[in-house]
Structure formats: C-alpha cells, structure tokens
C-alpha cells in the first residue's frame, strides 16, 4: 500500500525509536483526552457537584489538545502499519468507539456544560455513561490491535 511506502512511514517502522516515540505521544494524549473527560463525565453524573459545569468547560481545550495529539500520532502509526491496522477488527472497533466518544464530548461541551445545571438531565447522564464505556472500549480495542491482528 502506498501509505506504507512514504518516507515517514518507513522511518517510523524501520528505526528503533520512530514507533515508540509516536506511541509515547499517543499515551500522553490519552491521559489528557480520556483523563479529563472522565472527570467531566463523573461531574455530569453527579460527582463533585461544587464544580460548576460551565467552568469545567474551560478544561475542554486541553481535551481537544489531547485529541489532536492522538489524531496526529495515530495517523502516523497507522501509516507505518496501514494494512495490518486496516484489516484489524480491533482497529475498526477502536475507531467506532472514538467516533461515539467524540460525538458525545461535542454534545456535552456545546449543550450540557454550557447550560451549567447543578442537576444534569437524564439524557446527559446516560451519555456520560456511554462516553465512559466508549473510551474504555477504545483503550481496550487499541491495546488488542497489537495482539489480535494477523501479521502481514
């Protein structure tokens, strides 16, 4: 596949440090992205109510920063191993989980956090639970790519 033949892809896969360096960015981004979303989801579910949601919303740029870090490092890691990832069911589950988690994060950011209710509506709570489940799923599926994909 063409993607794998790019100079960057070859370097990432061929050098000792290329792959682990991008994996490191991917883990740092994970901490920011999922870590801060866990705090926000828990607050939506009623934990730490003295934290106003509209103020917690100001942490969202750090969530998006973590996401961008992971999207960029993720694309580079994908390019290095494009066929293995593309045909991996774990990879497909991971992407699906991320899309669900992102859509919910955008909704919570634009609606629930902005409305700043102390008691959040049932729909927001349900979405917070689905968000926690989908990011957990993304992490598990991501980890399994390395184990369940057939080598090409």
């Amino acid at each position, binding site marked *: 596949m063409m993607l794998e033949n790019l100079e960057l892809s070859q370097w990432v896969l061929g050098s000792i440090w290329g792959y682990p360096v991008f994996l490191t960015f991917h883990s740092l981004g994970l901490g920011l992205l999922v870590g801060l979303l866990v705090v926000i989801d828990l607050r939506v579910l009623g934990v730490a109510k003295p934290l106003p949601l509209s103020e917690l919303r*100001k942490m969202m740029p750090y969530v998006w920063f973590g996401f961008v870090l992971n999207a960029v490092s993720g694309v580079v890691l994908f390019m290095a191993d494009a066929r293995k990832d593309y045909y991996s069911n774990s990879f497909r589950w991971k992407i699906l989980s991320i899309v669900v988690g992102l859509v919910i994060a955008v909704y919570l950011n634009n609606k629930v956090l902005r409305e700043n209710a102390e008691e959040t509506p049932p729909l927001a709570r349900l979405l917070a639970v689905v968000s926690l489940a989908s990011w957990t799923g993304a992490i598990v599926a991501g980890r399994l790519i390395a*184990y369940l994909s057939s080598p090409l």
Partner: protein
Amino acid sequence: MLQGFLESLDGTAIGLTVKTSVWMFPVLEALHFIGLALLIGGIAALDLRVLGVAKRLPIAPLHKLLPLVFVGFGINLITGVLFFLSDPLGYGVNPAFQFKVIFILLAGLNALWFELKLSRQVEEWGPGVDASTHAKVVCGLSLFLWAGIITAGRLLPSFAALL
C-alpha cells in the same frame, strides 16, 4: 545486591502465569492504560486549575477527586507489579524501568508534600482565587513527573530490545 534481589523474585508462580499466558498480558496492559486515564485525569484537572486554567473552579472539590487518582494508581500498581514479576531480571536492569520507578517515587513524595504543606489551604482557593506560587511549583512538577513516567513506560520495551 540488586541482582540477588531480582533473582529471588524470578520464577514465582504468579510471574510465570503472567509470562506464559496468552491473554494475561494484553488484559493487564489494557487495565494499565485505563488506570493511567483515571490517575492522570484526576491529577491533571487539579494541577491545571492550580496553575491557573479554569480559574473560576474552586480547588477544594477538585482536591476531593483524590479517590479517583488512588483507584487509578492502585490498578496500575497491581498490574505494574504483575508485569515486573513476569520478568524481574529483564525489568530490573532496564534503564527506562529504573527511571520510571524513581519518577513514581518522586511524584509520590511531591504529592505527599502537597498534602502535608498545602492541602489545608485548598478551602481558601475558591472561585477566581489564584493559588500560591508554592502550590503552582508543586503542581507544575507533578505534571512534569507524570509525563516523564508515561514516557519512560512507553519506551521501556524499546530499551528491553536494546539490552
């Protein structure tokens, strides 16, 4: 001395189980990353606020998220010890592992310092109130140490391959 200690931990029943099982490593690794998210989430939220992000958040309720941090740390300590027991001789001499353990100890001392010297002040740091420079240094150091811990952990297998 280190060598003797590592050898005494080599070949335990639990270590061999982790090493030889097909599914234990991936499951433990997935848990280690979930623990990472819980741990870093609670820490980053508090540290960022102390450093001046989202300043209208009161600091005391963020400080009360400590149980979340402990759950994450507990998961990662248990899974981390299991990784280590699967190959004590390999991990023990790995510079990335040694660096990681030292940084975890430093992060622990740094957090203990916050609890002993600063935690009584968190009630004073309400909405819009700037935390002290002392607290900002401790929380900045905390973010730096945890980023170093993640980096060392991620580079660990590459160092193992070099040894």
